[in-house]
């Protein structure tokens, strides 16, 4: 049967991974190329095997195989075909298998071709990455096996088991429980794979870094080799975070997009250190400095990715007690601790390898700016960590349960992000080795004046609180500098080669993708910054309970409440209007919709119907808003329900929020530019000398 086939494929994948791990270590320590080659091939074989295992789950979902516990939990007879496929990652055990599969894709891509260079690193890169993969496959098999089937014992009790218990018979449920309604939304279908792709990709740079230490490789070749896979992982991690924010905004209905919730935080934590690493490793490549820092950053990224997987996959964080119940806790935390302790021990053993080639010459140098950048990323990382794990620790230590709310995070993280934005502007202008204050002053006085002008203007027109003006001022400052960098390059090309400005612009980027792609990511972040400051500080919120025909005023908008519609398939309350709501929706959901009209002077009225989607199995609800988007702001309406003939409407005006999404898109494009391969021949003729020149 297909389920048996899947289980067998999973077990063989585990064996292949273990074999590859052992052969890589033997090959590396005994210097036997044949062993290493065999390890490489076995590592590559894991992807097809895991693909087979994933397909087995999908086929089981598609064929209504409710004797498989996993299919029983995530699918049912009314689940559409598409959702039966995505249900592969709709439950805990399947998602860990899927997570494994995504990791095997990275491993496949890195090892599918025989390596021509860095052959000294190869066995160790294999060992670290396939070792991690082997751990997670074993975890799947022994603690979260999606191939467990339902068995009935002699007394008629049903329990899941991978193998048939003595005296039991296979049990096939009449129907499944169906996919968690939260996971039926397109945003929630695509967001987890993106985040997982970002997570699992971090194993590659970590493997390279550890390999360089073990193989005593003093060159930069590992940094160059791991750059692109790291950017791929970073891109997916960023996309996962952005899509998660967008999904929350679109369906969760609290008017926001980021709630500093432990699950969000645990995805943000590895992103913070990975971002710092991507920056800081440039200094190691160019100047041979910050080697210890970089090892620390990539180790933290990797081990917090493990921790994040644990937190997001098991929902452990809400309480210490659910942690004790989860059978995954001990293996996950052991692996996390092992990765940390192992990497630190290795760093200590190889400390001679991590000595800096150069000294920091001045505080006003590119090197120092990058150091500060890593420092600020680490303090943010530390802040978010304390906030996330504080409640767990406090419950353990004092017995009192407490939580840290979003205002505390905003207040703490805000100033640190402001420091990053300032660095984003200044750092590219500061010269390597040592910069003179005069030279730097010459380059930044114009943007600085502009920034101060923006601050004063905002302050005068009453931007409140004061740090809103400061925030916009800092964004203006860095935005002006970044755009000037593009303009300078463009104009120089135009003058030198006579290309028109558009051509000069595209060639400028194409010829130096790393630099200008990087600046584009900065632009994206700055544009996002405008959206964050705006929506966080200028949000307007009102709530009214209205009788049909009643009106409420929100800013320039007049909202007229028409009527409510309640559809509940479980009680048969299904009027003719309900049909339209159930075209693509399961009958395990009740709908409470509020029809209303939005009017604004000089514009045609718009009709919206925000609604509540209540899951009849009691697992929760969604409150998708009715949104009227304009360039400057979103009018975001929620219908909270109808009681005693009154419909309750919550209205938000979210100013500048479009900037957040547009900035996100710019960031993604910038990352794609930065990681696009540059043909080697072109690299020589790259680009302009940098503006910042060192003083000798």
């Amino acid at each position, binding site marked *: 049967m297909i389920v048996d086939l899947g289980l067998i494929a999973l077990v063989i994948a585990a064996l292949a991974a273990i074999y590859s791990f052992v052969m890589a270590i033997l090959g590396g320590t005994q210097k036997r190329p044949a062993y290493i080659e065999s390890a490489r091939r076995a590592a590559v074989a894991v992807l097809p095997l895991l693909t087979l295992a994933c397909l087995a789950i999908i086929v089981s979902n598609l064929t209504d195989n409710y004797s498989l516990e996993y299919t029983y939990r995530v699918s049912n007879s009314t689940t559409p075909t598409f959702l039966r496929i995505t249900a592969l990652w709709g439950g805990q055990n399947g998602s860990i298998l899927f997570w494994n599969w995504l990791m095997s894709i990275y491993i496949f891509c890195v090892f599918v071709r025989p390596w021509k260079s860095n052959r000294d690193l190869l066995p160790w890169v294999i060992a670290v990455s396939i070792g991690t993969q082997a751990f997670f496959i074993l975890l799947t098999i022994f603690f979260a096996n999606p191939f467990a089937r339902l068995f009935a014992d002699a007394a008629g009790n049903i329990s899941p088991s991978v193998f048939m218990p003595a005296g039991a018979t296979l049990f096939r449920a*009449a129907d499944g429980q169906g996919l968690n309604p939260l996971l039926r939304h397109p945003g929630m279908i695509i967001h987890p794979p993106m985040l997982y792709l970002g997570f699992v990709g971090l194993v590659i740079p970590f493997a390279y870094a550890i390999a360089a230490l073990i193989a005593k490789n003093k060159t930069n070749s590992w940094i160059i080799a791991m750059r692109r896979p790291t950017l791929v992982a970073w891109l997916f991690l960023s996309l996962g975070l952005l899509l998660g924010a967008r999904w929350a905004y679109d369906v969760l209905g609290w008017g926001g997009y980021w709630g500093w919730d432990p699950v969000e935080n645990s995805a943000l934590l590895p992103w913070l250190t990975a971002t710092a690493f991507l920056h800081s490793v440039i200094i190691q490549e160019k100047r041979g400095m910050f080697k210890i820092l970089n090892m620390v950053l990539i180790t933290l990224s990797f081990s917090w990715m493990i921790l994040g997987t644990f937190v997001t996959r098991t929902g452990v964080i809400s309480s210490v007690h659910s942690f004790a119940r989860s059978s995954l806790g001990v293996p996950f935390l052991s692996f996390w601790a092992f990765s940390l302790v192992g990497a630190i021990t290795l760093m200590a053993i190889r400390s001679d390898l991590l000595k800096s080639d150069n000294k920091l010459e001045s505080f006003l140098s590119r090197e120092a700016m990058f150091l500060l950048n890593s420092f600020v990323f680490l303090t943010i990382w530390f802040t978010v960590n304390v906030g996330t794990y504080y409640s767990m620790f406090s419950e353990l230590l004092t017995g009192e349960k407490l939580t840290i709310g979003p205002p505390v995070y905003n207040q703490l993280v805000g100033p640190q992000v402001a420091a990053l934005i300032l660095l984003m502007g200044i750092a590219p202008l500061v010269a390597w080795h040592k910069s003179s204050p005069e030279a730097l002053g010459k380059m930044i006085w114009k943007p600085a004046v502009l920034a101060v002008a923006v601050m004063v203007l905002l302050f005068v027109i009453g931007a409140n609180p004061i740090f809103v003006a400061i925030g916009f001022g800092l964004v203006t400052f860095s935005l002006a500098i970044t755009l000037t960098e593009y303009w300078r390059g463009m104009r120089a090309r135009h003058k030198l080669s006579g290309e028109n400005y558009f051509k000069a612009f595209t060639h400028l980027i194409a010829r130096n993708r790393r630099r200008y792609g990087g600046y584009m990511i900065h632009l994206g972040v700055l544009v996002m910054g405008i959206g964050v400051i705006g929506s966080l500080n200028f949000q307007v919120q009102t709530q009214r309970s209205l009788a049909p025909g009643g009106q409420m005023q929100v800013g320039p908008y007049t909202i007229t409440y028409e009527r409510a519609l309640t559809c509940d398939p479980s009680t048969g309350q299904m009027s003719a209007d309900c049909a339209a709501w159930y075209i693509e929706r399961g009958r395990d959901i009740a709908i409470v919709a509020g029809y209303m009209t939005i009017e604004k002077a000089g514009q045609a009225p718009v009709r919206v119907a925000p609604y509540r989607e209540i899951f009849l199995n009691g697992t929760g609800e969604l409150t998708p808003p009715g949104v009227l988007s304009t360039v400057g702001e979103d009018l975001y309406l929620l219908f909270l329900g109808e009681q005693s003939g009154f419909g309750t409407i919550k209205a938000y005006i979210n100013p500048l929020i479009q900037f957040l999404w547009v900035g996100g898109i710019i960031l993604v494009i910038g990352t794609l530019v930065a990681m696009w391969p540059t043909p080697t021949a072109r690299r020589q003729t790259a680009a302009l000398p940098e503006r910042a020149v060192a003083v000798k």
Partner: protein
Amino acid sequence: MKPKYLLGLALMAAAVVFLIVTSMSANAQYFYTVDELWAKGQSLVDQNVRVSGAVINASTKFEVRDNQPYLEFEIADADKVATQKPLRIVYNGPKPDLINEPHAQAIVEGHLGADGNFHADTLLLKCPSRYEEEFPNQVDKTSG
């Protein structure tokens, strides 16, 4: 690295840690049971906390006042419903459907007012009976 740079970074790190610790301990939100809340009593007035307890269904009252939803209900610790002084929750929001379920658990976030009522900013309801999703009974068995 020169000692003065290290010293600079260490000072900055210390400042950040100090900021985090002070502002978190000042703003952390405690999660109490009704018993714990009464034990702390007046010291908690106007402080932002979370409380959870079992909803006393008969106490639920909902109306619309001045175009604002107004919900009032009482909670008590699930094992002490009969003996404990219940906590009255006042919430300016719609009445959740689950509030009338026999074993509804409410988690509210807000502050204890001087009037002895708890003024909730957010209200979350859980229904333990609905959360148990166990395997079907043999009786449900209709196909092989």
